[in-house]
């Protein structure tokens, strides 16, 4: 069911576990219909945030709303959620078919919805006990139960863990299809490349704090190439300070690394004044840009 408005809103959301882990003062909103990538290293607080969303744990301070409801007071809102836990544990003695039938009933569905078709698409052995399934197949079972009732909101914690590349591709198709159907997708990962193809927006969480949110388009607009130039002799320090579109990133003896945005001509002309021994260029991925932005944000905070 496509819907205007906000799917998830966190307001000063805080969960403290002693001094070590937890999340601090998270403020973010995920618009309905958006694919939101939630990034951070392991232990940064991604799973804690997700478990707060689902009312599996309760905030120390602040609150969270899902479709405008408090998930603690309104259990029915979970009917609209499809959840894949990061640490997926399934009923070992059931088959994936039985698991889906059970959860379908709990969600008020008459039959297991699209479960059978999804299982076929992911090549999940649907009628074998889960105890006998490989890690990858368990993950598929987790995906099938999350997607089967065509939920308005998918909350997926490290969804591609344990999936081989071909199945990952199918997973990204499923996310894209859900998005086209109007669903909101909240996707956690520890690396950007896993989400950059499907996400509209990404947020970075580090040590329990949200350090940055950015639209993926915005990241793309900042795309740059890395150009590594080796000179016969090290050029003067300020030689490339005023070259349009180019920025000196690093320098090791005769080798200089540039970030190049836009047209290459000004840099080439500037390089031509020196004797160039070798030149190497490659596209930076969004991860580099993202980390670049993150370091910028951190530097501003420090200042």
């Amino acid at each position, binding site marked *: 069911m496509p819907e205007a408005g906000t799917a998830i809103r966190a307001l000063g959301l805080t969960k403290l576990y002693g001094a070590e882990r937890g999340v601090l003062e998270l403020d973010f909103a995920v618009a309905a219909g958006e694919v939101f990538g939630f990034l951070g290293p392991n232990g940064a607080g991604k799973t804690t945030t997700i*478990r707060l969303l689902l009312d*599996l744990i*309760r905030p120390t301070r602040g609150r969270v709303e899902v479709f405008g409801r408090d998930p603690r007071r309104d259990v029915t809102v979970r009917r609209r959620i499809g959840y894949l*836990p990061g640490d997926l544990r399934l*009923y070992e003695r059931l088959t994936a078919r039985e698991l889906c039938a059970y959860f379908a009933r*709990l969600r008020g569905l008459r039959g297991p919805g699209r479960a059978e078709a999804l299982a076929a698409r992911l090549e999940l052995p649907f009628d074998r006990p889960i105890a006998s399934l490989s890690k990858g197949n368990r993950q598929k079972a987790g995906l099938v139960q999350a997607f089967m009732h065509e939920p308005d909101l998918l909350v997926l914690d490290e969804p591609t863990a344990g999936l081989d590349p071909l199945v990952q591709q199918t997973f990204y198709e499923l996310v894209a299809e859900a998005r086209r159907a109007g669903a909101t997708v909240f996707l956690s990962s520890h690396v950007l490349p896993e989400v950059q193809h499907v996400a509209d927006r990404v947020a970075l969480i580090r040590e329990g704090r949200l350090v940055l949110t950015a639209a993926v388009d915005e990241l793309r607009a900042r795309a740059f190439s890395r150009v590594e130039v080796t000179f016969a002799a090290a050029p003067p320090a300020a030689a490339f300070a005023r070259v349009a579109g180019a920025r000196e990133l690093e320098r090791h003896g005769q080798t200089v690394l540039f970030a190049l945005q836009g047209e290459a001509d000004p840099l080439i002309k500037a390089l031509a004044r020196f004797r160039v021994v070798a030149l190497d260029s490659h596209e930076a991925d969004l991860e580099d840009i993202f980390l670049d932005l993150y370091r910028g944000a951190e530097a501003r905070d420090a200042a």
Partner: protein
Amino acid sequence: MLRNAFLKTLRDARRGFAWWSLGLVAMAALMIAVYPSVRDNPGLNELVEDYPDAFKAFFGLGEDVDYTSAVGYLKSELFSFMVPLLLLVAAIGAGARATAGEEEAGTLDLLLANPISRRRLVLEKLGALAAELFALGLVLWLALVAGVEAIGMDVSAAHLAAATLAAALLALAFGAIALFAGAALGRRGAAIGVAAAGAVAAYLVSSLAELVGFLEPVRLASPYYHYAANDALRAGLAPEHVAFLVALAAAALACAVAAFERRDLATS
């Protein structure tokens, strides 16, 4: 069988249920099969009478028990210890598995991400526990009635039903206590420990109170006392004692709901 958490829990329990049924039936059959030789051996009664009072009290052989009578025999051999023990073990195991078992197995996260409230889950789990327990009681009762009928023991089916029901209610109360401990602590082993310790204490207080004067008032707090005080094989059920056991189960259930609704669920 996968329509809700209640039926799912019963489905998970079916194999265990078969084994428990087998055990209870075998125990009933064995004890009843031995009875004719006990009955025909009046010397046994004198032997029991010569036991020290402390010993008799501890094993539920009251002052006035005629060990060789059908009621006296069933009471001392089955209902004073073995039947409540087995039903307690079954109930405490199921109570501890209810939420704490799923929490430890890690399936609770996925289950509670469904539109089912924590209160509802606790109620359905206790419902399943009660259903399993009463079904076990029914199996035991049928076995006893068949056995008693077969060798012509002088005890009514109604009184056997009352005694079995009283034992099931005792077990239900401790099953609910195990469920409460598991809901509050999130650990199955701890839940079993708490409930088992409570059951042992209840038994000791009730048994020793007959010997130790100062325990006399305390035994009113012992669920085992309220179980035994029915004297169900002879007199059927006594409403005040049944009410105590039911109230204890209900109180434990209310505490389980309250504790479970407040808690952060553990990650496995």
